């Protein structure tokens, strides 16, 4: 559990003192004019900038506030974590998109399930800059993740993997991949899944970027052709992959949103600035919509806070993360839709987009398109609604009675 025992194991700092420290550090260290520098650039320049920014954050101890005590930058209380994310958002520092999966998905999964050897090997490497991607989805296994078909066969001390993954964010830059594979034919299909850690430089791995509607290619396909993975790279037991994957998904759905909701709150200023710029700051209808959005964004921050509190105290219940994610994704869609509406016709003219910003960069058309990240990836809104209805409200599951006509 992330953050467990944090209060007792590291000395706690007065959050307001920490705030001053973080603020001063950010003033000194956030790359000047990074937005301009990251607008209209290619992926490679962006990747270089991300590596540099990540290294600086690590050095200062601000890259891993959500990690438990005993790890560099970890062991922070709820209040401290909030202060760091608030200040990072306030300073409009670049977001660590390239390290997103490494810092959250990979780290949280390994903290919970990894053997001491796996933790000792992979977690320090994350801090040193290893990039991870997530290889769960397949062309025929999206929402129905458990139906995935990429096969791993145990031969001696290694698994041999064949199959295809898709939509894997940043796969083209990743050093390692969280790979969910089928090792057995058991029913229900969840029982036959196993969780592996794949070295992306292994023989038989190839990645093809996918062109996205924004003109970017943030995700890609991964083809796996007789790829060998040593058995010590298995997380959990064989057949336990589904349970391990739930940790990955919970971190993606809940924990990442502590930072993103703070970013969203700070980005409200972009809408206000846009209203001024477009000369409609006095428009009563728009003010009403903005006020409604403010309350929803505040609620998103409050939900993420409560989620983190529950997680730290070990009270997280099934569905809690889904609620945070669903509220965030719906609020984000409303946010960018309002931005797009106010930006008017000029907002329809094609403009270069900025890499490494929050979900609200002020290029409203691109922000609008990218907001689907949060309504589709990590389990779509509809899937979150199923989880909330079934696991929190106790409503029955869909009957499995359909047969092809």
């Amino acid at each position: 559990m992330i953050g467990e025992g944090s209060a007792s194991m590291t000395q706690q700092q007065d959050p307001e003192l920490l705030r001053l420290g973080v603020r001063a550090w950010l003033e000194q260290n956030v790359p000047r004019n990074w937005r301009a520098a990251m607008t209209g650039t290619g992926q490679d320049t962006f990747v270089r900038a991300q590596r540099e920014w990540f290294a600086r954050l690590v050095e200062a101890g601000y890259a891993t506030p959500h990690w438990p005590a005993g790890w560099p930058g970890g062991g922070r209380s709820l209040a401290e974590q909030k202060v760091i994310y608030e200040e990072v958002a306030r300073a409009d520092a670049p977001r660590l998109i390239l390290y997103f999966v490494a810092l959250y998905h990979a780290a949280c999964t390994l903290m919970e399930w990894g053997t001491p050897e796996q933790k000792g090997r992979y977690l320090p490497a994350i801090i040193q800059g290893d990039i991870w991607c997530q290889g769960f989805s397949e062309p025929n296994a999206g929402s129905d993740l458990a139906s995935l078909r990429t096969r791993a066969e145990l031969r001696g001390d290694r698994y041999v993997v064949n199959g295809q993954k898709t939509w894997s964010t940043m796969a083209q830059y990743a050093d390692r991949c969280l790979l969910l594979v089928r090792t057995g034919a058991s029913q229900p299909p969840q029982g036959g899944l196993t969780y592996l850690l794949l070295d992306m430089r292994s023989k038989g791995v190839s990645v093809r970027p996918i062109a996205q509607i924004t003109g970017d290619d943030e995700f890609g396909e991964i083809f796996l052709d007789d790829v060998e993975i040593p058995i010590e790279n298995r997380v959990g037991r064989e057949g336990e992959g589904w349970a391990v994957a739930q940790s990955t998904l919970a971190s993606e759905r809940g924990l990442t949103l502590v930072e993103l909701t703070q970013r969203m709150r700070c980005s409200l200023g972009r809408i206000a600035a846009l209203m001024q710029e477009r000369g409609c700051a006095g428009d009563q209808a728009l003010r009403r919509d903005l006020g409604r959005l403010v309350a929803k964004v505040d609620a998103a921050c409050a939900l993420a806070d409560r989620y983190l509190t529950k997680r730290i105290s070990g009270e997280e219940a099934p569905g809690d993360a889904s609620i945070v994610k669903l509220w965030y994704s719906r609020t984000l869609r409303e946010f960018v839709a309002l931005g797009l509406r106010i930006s008017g016709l000029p907002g329809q003219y094609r403009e270069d987009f900025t890499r490494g910003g929050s979900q609200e960069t002020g290029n409203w058309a691109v922000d609008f398109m990218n907001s689907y990240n949060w309504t589709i990836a990590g389990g779509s809104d509809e899937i979150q609604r199923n989880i909330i209805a079934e696991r929190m409200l106790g409503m029955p599951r869909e009957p499995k009675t359909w047969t092809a006509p």
Partner: protein
Amino acid sequence: MSETLHQLRESARHVLAELGLAAAEPSTWDLVTELGWLLVAVPEELGGLGQGLSGACAFHTELGRGLASVPYASATLAIDAVCRIGAGRRADWVQRLTAGEYVCTPLSDSTQIARVAAGKLTLRGVASAVPSADKASHILVCSSAADCVALVPLDRAGVQLTYRPTWDSTRRLFDVHFTDVALDEPLMLARETDAQALCRALSIQRDLALAADSVGGAGALLERTVDYLQTRRQFARPLALFQALKHRCADLKTQLAAAEALLIGSLDRIGDSLDAPGAEAAAKAAKYLACSMYASLAEEALQLHGGIGMTVEHPCHLFLKRALLNQQLGRRPDCYEPDLADALLGGL
């Protein structure tokens, strides 16, 4: 939440459940006073339980859950006001009001005007949405025009009560008319800047009380709705099996959780400093989100119940009517969203 508050809250839920939904006002009021619920937010040094605003809101939530027909919000606002006045007169008033003497407070911004005529402050106009005013000894009046907060005895000449039956049968609202009623100096709670601060503090608490009532009512109604869908069968299956209905319930649950989190977040942010810069906006956001959530949840709940939801025996309509009224109480209802935008635009 403190352990004490947690226990208080649990026992309140238990007691109210036993009493039943929307139980009669007199018996519920007796319970409220006997069990000391009016003391929850009163500071310990004044003989209260010292649970502050969060404590009060925990009770508003529970009373909202039970659709309680008591003027608890109105009473506790007045109690809070007398807790904030100068030490000289405070103890006596606190003692009287927490023992069950009821001083009522309007639940909406009213139009009464205090003015100085011939060297004396007099009151004229109407205070509206005053709960159970016929049971009260005094009314708490905040006059922004004259910058004063005062208690006015309801048996004073020139004060007249009009009962205004509402669709919400769990509350009894009155208009209180004032025709040149002289304000007594001994009953004056605050003047000028003190009065402005007190008015603000009262508005903040009223917003939070309405938000809490809404969160409580919405929570209870969602549970009932899901239970109903689990038991009602159509097409040879429980309605709860239909995904179209499951997803609507999940959305309602998410909206409820968000409003509740925002209420708790606002309470944390405000703490004991009702005069802190962000306090008003935090309370407005909580009130706006919770009351609009309650109204739309209640609207959906009735639809999800089908025909039975339109019958008077079924409690669905009680929640709906209370929710619709909550939305109209507090500040002028259409000011919340623009005010939140202003707070943002002004804070830049």
